């Protein structure tokens, strides 16, 4: 491929057809990601896309960049490794609310505080869709449509943006799958912002949470003219947030984590070890 050719969003889509349910918000996220990548103007081989497990974690297969469909909840650990080994790459990680905030919750907190320069997209539908509709960490306590929690979970849900801020994420944004062009903008801003960027996307699951079709009537842009740049200010705003505010919620200025790299062996040295 000629690296100087301007690629379009279609160039970033692979030939693999998504198996998501018709109406799933993840289709829009895929479109937003490919539009964002086209806007970045980088060649495909300079981008790595890592995911965990779940419906939304299938997304790297549907794109035409380097992809790694990882282990449940471990997308961020893999993505951080990729970025530290290959700082020249643009690294994206993606997954769902279950993968990222329950199974991978621990990794999420530490990725936020470690602040490696990468972008993490969480497609939040407040349900485990791939395993047929169980409550996830972001499900409301009174949602009782799963046979496993017939009276609801009774547990306060995780608030992803608040958790990210408290854990040290350097850039936090929220988008809605129903407005994919705005999501594309948030992804581009997240990628361009140094450090760990967290993009929380409300992505309806029309099969197990059909009531989420109404999210389009709940989402609204932030009333603030510009994103908070101080943690205290962002905390104050997020404390009053209804969970449906879209836009950049926080843009910090912490320097990204990047340890000094010292070459300990050449490829020739490594090859010798295998030969001998």
């Amino acid at each position, binding site marked *: 491929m000629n690296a100087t050719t301007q690629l379009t969003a279609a160039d970033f889509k692979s030939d693999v057809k998504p198996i998501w*349910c*018709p109406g799933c918000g993840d289709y829009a996220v895929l479109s937003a990601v490919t539009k964002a990548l086209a806007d970045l103007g980088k060649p495909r081989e300079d981008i790595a896309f890592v995911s965990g497990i779940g419906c939304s974690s299938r997304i790297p297969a549907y794109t035409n960049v380097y992809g790694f469909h990882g282990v449940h909840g471990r997308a961020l650990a893999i993505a951080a490794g990729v970025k530290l080994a290959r700082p020249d790459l643009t690294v994206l990680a993606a997954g769902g609310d279950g993968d990222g905030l329950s199974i991978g919750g621990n990794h999420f907190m530490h990725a936020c505080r470690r602040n490696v320069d990468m972008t993490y997209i969480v497609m939040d539908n407040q349900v485990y869709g791939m395993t*047929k509709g169980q409550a996830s960490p972001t499900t409301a306590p009174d949602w009782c449509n799963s046979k496993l929690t017939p009276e609801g979970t009774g547990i306060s849900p995780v608030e992803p943006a608040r958790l990210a801020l408290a854990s040290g994420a350097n850039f936090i944004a929220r988008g809605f799958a*129903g407005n994919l062009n705005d999501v594309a903008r948030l992804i581009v801003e997240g990628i361009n912002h140094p450090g760990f960027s967290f993009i929380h996307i409300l992505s*309806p699951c029309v*099969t197990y949470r059909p009531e989420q*079709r109404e999210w389009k009537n709940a989402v609204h842009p932030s009333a603030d003219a510009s994103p908070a740049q101080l943690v205290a200010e962002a905390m104050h705003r997020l404390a009053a947030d209804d969970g449906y505010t879209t836009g950049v919620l926080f843009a910090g200025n912490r320097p990204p984590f990047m340890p000094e790299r010292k070459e300990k062996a050449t490829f020739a040295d490594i090859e010798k070890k295998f030969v001998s």
Partner: protein
Amino acid sequence: MPTDIATFLAHAVALEQEAAERYAELADAMEVHNNKEVAELFRKLSAFSKLHLDEVKAIADNYDLPQLKPWEFQWTDGESPEAAPSDRTHYMMTPYHCLQLALFNEKKGHVYYADRAHRATDPEVKKFAQLFADEEAEHVVMLEKWIATVKPPQENWDLDLDPPGDLE
């Protein structure tokens, strides 16, 4: 709102392209869910949109169009008016629903162009916006006639005897 001809045509090209791409995406999704009849219809709708895209591109080739970022397009609802809203789809939707969705999109396309024609001060924008509005109006009439030939769905069209949420 795009006021000059180049920006207006950039919007028109994006509108038709996104309509074609969305129909193709829905066709693929329906195929995966074994709804072959609706998949075929969405495929046809995508082909129709591509034909219209070619027409718009032929006009646009005479102008130097601006390279707009996805979020710089000035759509009324954040997305191009003829891109089928995904939340109006269902894996068991019938051809009737599919054509109703297409009608919904064409009506939105017509309103978009008619509004541009009404508000335009640039004579070229007014001319092409009116031309495209008239074409969209023709599509609306065509779809209404088509829908009249299609059997409306039964009341329980979305009854799935093996529903996705059934664990028993």
